């Protein structure tokens, strides 16, 4: 069985469609993030890891009644708690979020108050082992935000250097731009669907950066090989041919990885939902970006160099040592 026996699509010819598609998603993502920034002060809803605060998740023995829970919690003096069903409206789990606590020495009282209030004022029983609590102080939250951004930028920089070393600078730049594009659109999706970013979501984003880079490298590798073999073809033709040759592999790998990530999204439970959502979107966009963003960039650069009077040099890569 074989899906793509002899494909011959003019990918570069479609680059304006691709650009439009990317622009639509990027811009709507950016607008959504701007709107979020105005309302909640950050581009995407932040999970408790980053914004700090207290989150209590409780699994009751009987289906919980949200309004009764709110009454119990307010009776104990907590007025701005956010209470919602966790893991679907049919489950027995409830998530109670308290806002950020500025005073670190009073950090734990919110949790104690909530758990005691639930035990005393709301009769639905639950055991200690059915409780999950996250209390994050403001210092830790802020530290984590900074670290997460640093990690992402460091990752991209590292890969740029690696690609510069293995290919040529323009390859590295094109690949990094593609990854940036992927991250932006994925974050945009989080913003559009109002999902929270937690530390595991950042892990997913770093993974998808690695994955998108993977994909781009496979195409670039083939371009480099083809350039070495035929000096007479024009760059756009070589690029198109390379993409067509690797299409089978690209679709297969993305498809299979997508299947496994989809399985995570469906079966993996609520804790991993943000993580798997990021990967579901990320894998699709990552595959798309290698063909639609990275490859056209190479050609555009070459044409710009040729047009502005520089020598018409094919960006053939350095001799590969392997």
């Amino acid at each position: 069985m074989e899906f793509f026996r002899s494909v011959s699509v003019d990918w570069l010819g479609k680059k304006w469609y691709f650009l439009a598609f990317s622009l639509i998603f990027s811009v709507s993502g950016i607008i959504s993030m701007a709107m979020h920034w105005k309302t909640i002060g950050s581009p995407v809803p932040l999970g408790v890891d980053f914004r700090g605060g207290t989150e209590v998740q409780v699994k009751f023995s009987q289906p919980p009644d949200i309004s009764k829970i709110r009454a119990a919690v307010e009776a104990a003096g907590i007025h701005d708690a956010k209470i919602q069903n966790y893991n679907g409206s049919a489950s027995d789990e409830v998530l109670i979020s308290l806002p950020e606590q500025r005073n670190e020495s009073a950090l734990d009282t919110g949790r104690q108050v909530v758990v005691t209030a639930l035990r005393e004022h709301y009769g639905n029983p639950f055991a200690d082992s059915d409780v999950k609590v996250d209390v994050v102080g403001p210092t830790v939250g802020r530290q984590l935000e900074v670290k997460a951004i640093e990690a992402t930028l460091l990752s991209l920089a590292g890969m740029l250097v690696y690609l510069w070393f293995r290919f040529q600078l323009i390859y590295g730049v094109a690949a990094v731009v593609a990854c940036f594009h992927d991250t932006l659109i994925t974050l945009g999706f989080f913003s559009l669907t109002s999902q929270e970013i937690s530390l595991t979501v950042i892990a997913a984003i770093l993974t998808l950066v690695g994955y998108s880079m993977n994909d781009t490298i496979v195409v670039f590798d083939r371009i480099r090989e083809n350039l070495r073999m035929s000096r007479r073809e024009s760059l756009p033709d070589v690029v198109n041919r390379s993409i067509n040759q690797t299409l089978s592999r690209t679709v297969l790998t993305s498809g299979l990885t997508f299947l496994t990530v989809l399985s995570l999204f469906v079966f993996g439970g609520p804790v991993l939902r943000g993580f798997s959502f990021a990967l579901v979107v990320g894998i699709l966009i990552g595959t798309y970006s290698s063909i639609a963003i990275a490859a056209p960039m190479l050609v555009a650069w070459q044409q710009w160099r040729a047009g502005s009077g520089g020598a018409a040099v094919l960006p053939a890569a350095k001799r590969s040592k392997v």
Partner: protein
Amino acid sequence: MKKNLRQKIVIIIGVLLVFLYGAFFGFDTPRFGGDQPMINQLTQHIHLGLDLQGGVHLILKVQVKEAVGTETDNTVARIEQDLKTAKLTFSQVYKPDPTNNPQSIRIEGITSTQSSAVSSLLDSKYSNEYDISGGGNDNSLAVTMKPNIEKALDDKTVQNTIEVIRDRVDTLGVSEPVIQQYGLGDNQILVELPGISDLDRVKTLIQSTARLEIHAVVGGPYPDEQAALASVGGNLPTDEELVHGSGSMATGSDVDSVYVLQRVAIVAGTDFRSADPGTDSNTGQRTVHFTLTNEAGDKFYEYTSANVGHSMAVVLGGRVKEVANIESAIRDSGEIRGSFSQDEVAILSKMLSTGALPATLNYLEDRTVGASLGSDSIKQGVTAAVVGVLLVMVFMLIYYRGSGINADLALFLNLVILLGFMGFSGATLTLPGIAGVILTIGMGVDSNVLIFERIREEVRAGKAPSAAVDQGFAHAWTTIVDTHVTTIVSALILIIVGNGPVRGFAVTLTFGLLANLFTAVYVSRVIFDTHVNNLKPGELVSI
């Protein structure tokens, strides 16, 4: 050629066995049979993260300024003593800003004639640890703790705190608790206790500073802080402080009163050598019988003999527990009667024998996962993993026929090596770690696809089976290296930056990718070569 192949197959089986061993036994000696089924052995060496087995995760910040403050309090007392003994006049020795700048001491009221005598006395005794400056026209000197001494004290405080917490946590009987310094230089401590669900109990145990101190009473009991302030004319001198408590047995145990006490304790913290619970023979009340160290005993004797008829307050954890009249000189042991609860006495005894916390702790982060929520997560993660793996395996068989078996074998070997790595390194499996395994499956398959597609191309171009396989592997190799290196780079950054669960993810991803490099290239090659060798002439590779 054939002999070579046989060698390679032996190597591969050897690797398989080694990592199987690692998954089940790690570096320990193997145990077969016994009362546990083998599958339990598997999970013993692979530690489950807190999010899977339930447990408590705390990040504490040690308020090191307090330890500095205690040290400088002692220095203030010693300076006063030294100046008195040398008969040099001064009006007061105090700390201008004890809360924010506990390292600064000021001496005021020095006469200009004696100023150089004072300076040289202080220099001779304190210049190792303190910088002494001033001596100008304002008749005062500033004595400030040197920054490097302060830093050394900070570090020592954190280390001592870690030891004390370790001792106390021992009583909980947690297997493999984690207590260590955390973060970069911010005096933070990480405490992780797997399997415990009762956060309150842990906090009481860890955080009771139970600094046991005895202070001289200036005035009290007063019904509230205003009355107490009024008694000292509205302005509290810097060497006194207001402390709440209920030291008077007559008024009942829970009435809260305010006392005015001397800030510097007569004896405190490490001056106590031990404390044991006891009962008062007359009233049957719970008491604490304490002993002091020799040095502290001398100090105490001196104080009590000079102050017969005055009162002193026993302060525990910042609250007055008992106020006693000094009836005669006490040397190094005594009994405290107060409204202690049984827990308080037990904790106090434990605290005093393991050591008091040198400073209070603030919680920066605190996460608990109940055990049953943890096991829910395991179930979900494993289901997702099994479904994912099956989907991939079936697809590979359909799409690549015979070579699909090759890919599936490689996948299976990947998983064994991954589990073996984790068993050997004692790494922790978290829920994101399970997700990492699933991701590794998806990406691992990539290498196989790369190679197989290439082989198909070569076959289509008319090459003979062994040449096609050769070329396929040769071309795919560079790409495989490039893609694996880039993903491992992101994983390494995650290991550095991430916290427990995220780090678990990055670790399993890295191990999985390394395993994949081995299986996709070496093992796949061997299987292909075996297959090609067994082909009849004219038969094509099954791909």
